[in-house]
């Protein structure tokens, strides 16, 4: 029996059946693979946090190398000893604080009655406590985010930056070693103990980054807006943690 494939009714039925079949195949696949995809995202976050603390596989290369995904979970649980959630003046421990979506928290906080939950991770390195803080902001084209590791006096121990879609070769360079390594040792507070952040500065006259207490690192040429975005997200997001660090002293 030959089907008249030109009939309108046939065309419509064919389209409906096709959409249903394809839709269910894809829905099944997506939900089947979701646990694996989620695990990958979690590992990536753990790798980034550990990277900011200086735990990485950078040895012998000039690229950014994370510790491998099969080891990251163990390394993360043994290195990050405590995770906190800061809500206003209340500080509580929460072993899943690193899963807090700071993008969602940021939009919820637009409502003035909402107390923003700030995640903070504490680890230990060379006998000193190190605190890792997630930050998020805007670059030229899309979101930029990162993690900053600081010690008790808010001196930066290491950073990690990433971006969703900055210009390759210019803004995208914020995730390169030569830019991120400059942040280590920089002071977030000025000599009087006032929060100043880090200015990604043009004309910094310090390309080798020898002055650690000037609250500035050298910008990437041609990446002004992305650099300003880094400055802004450090200023805005890290500042919220300053009251907590005052209590540590």
């Amino acid at each position, binding site marked *: 029996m030959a*089907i008249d*494939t*030109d009939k309108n009714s*046939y*065309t419509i039925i*064919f*389209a409906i059946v*096709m*959409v249903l079949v*394809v839709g269910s*195949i*894809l829905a099944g*696949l*997506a939900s089947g*693979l979701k646990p*694996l*995809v989620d695990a*990958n*995202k979690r*590992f*990536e976050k753990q790798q980034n946090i550990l990277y900011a603390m200086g735990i990485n596989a950078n040895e012998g290369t*000039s690229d950014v190398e994370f510790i491998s*995904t099969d080891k990251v979970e163990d390394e993360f649980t043994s290195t990050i000893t405590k995770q906190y959630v800061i809500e206003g003046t209340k500080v509580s421990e929460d072993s899943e604080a690193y899963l807090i979506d700071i993008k969602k928290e940021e939009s919820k906080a637009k409502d003035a009655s909402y107390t923003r939950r700030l995640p903070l991770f504490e680890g230990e390195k060379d006998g000193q406590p190190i605190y890792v803080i997630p930050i998020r902001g805007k670059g030229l084209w899309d979101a930029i985010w990162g993690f900053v590791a600081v010690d008790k006096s808010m001196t930066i121990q290491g950073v990690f930056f990433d971006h969703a879609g900055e210009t390759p070769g210019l803004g995208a360079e914020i995730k390169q070693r030569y830019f991120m390594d400059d942040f280590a040792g920089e002071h977030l507070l000025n000599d009087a103990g006032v929060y100043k952040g880090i200015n990604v500065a043009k004309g910094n006259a310090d390309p080798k980054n020898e002055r650690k207490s000037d609250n500035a690192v050298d910008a990437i040429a041609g990446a002004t807006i992305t650099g300003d975005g880094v400055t802004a997200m450090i200023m805005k997001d890290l500042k919220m943690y300053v009251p907590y660090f005052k209590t540590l002293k």
Partner: protein
Amino acid sequence: MGLLSKKDSKLILDPLADNNPITIQVLGICSALAITAQLKPSIVMAISVVFVLSVGNVVISLMRNIIPSKIRIIVQLIVVATLVIIVDQVLKAFAYTLSKELSVFIGLIITNCIIMGRFEAFALANKPWQSFLDGLGNAAGYGLILIIVGFFRELLGSGTLFGFKVLGDSVEKTGLYAIGYENNGFMVLPPMALIVVGLIIWVQRSRNKELIED
């Protein structure tokens, strides 16, 4: 008589050389420019296209008698899109870092003209087995050029292959760099891919005069 008849093996072998989708039909150039700065993404892209095109050709061929001709382009598009989403999801689950690197290009397979071209020109009119071979051959022909271009661009542009420093270290000045060799920064930019493709076409046509049009 082996596994493939003479006509069948022609379906696979033709697109590899004398009827190559990139160098002869000049299809799929866009992605050939975008992702060939390094060898690894070129290979992954080639494998993904082999999967999408050969499976897609079979699916279209199986449905060729029941697809309403009025909406056949949309049906083809849905088949490509479905397969591409499958590739994307599988990469996200099993090769996360790679999928981040390739991110947008996997999605762009949908717009790869070779795929729609083969669906429309071959799979709609041929049996599944022949369509499978045709898809395999064309995707392999595309992938072959991608890998050749990727090889030269990574080697000459960054002095590496698969990220390994095969020519020595350009910062430490070891290996070839010790005698004054410099990487050609142009090679990592997209226009150079076009020039490399052009060179391949030149070599191919000077070896086989039949390919030269009047």
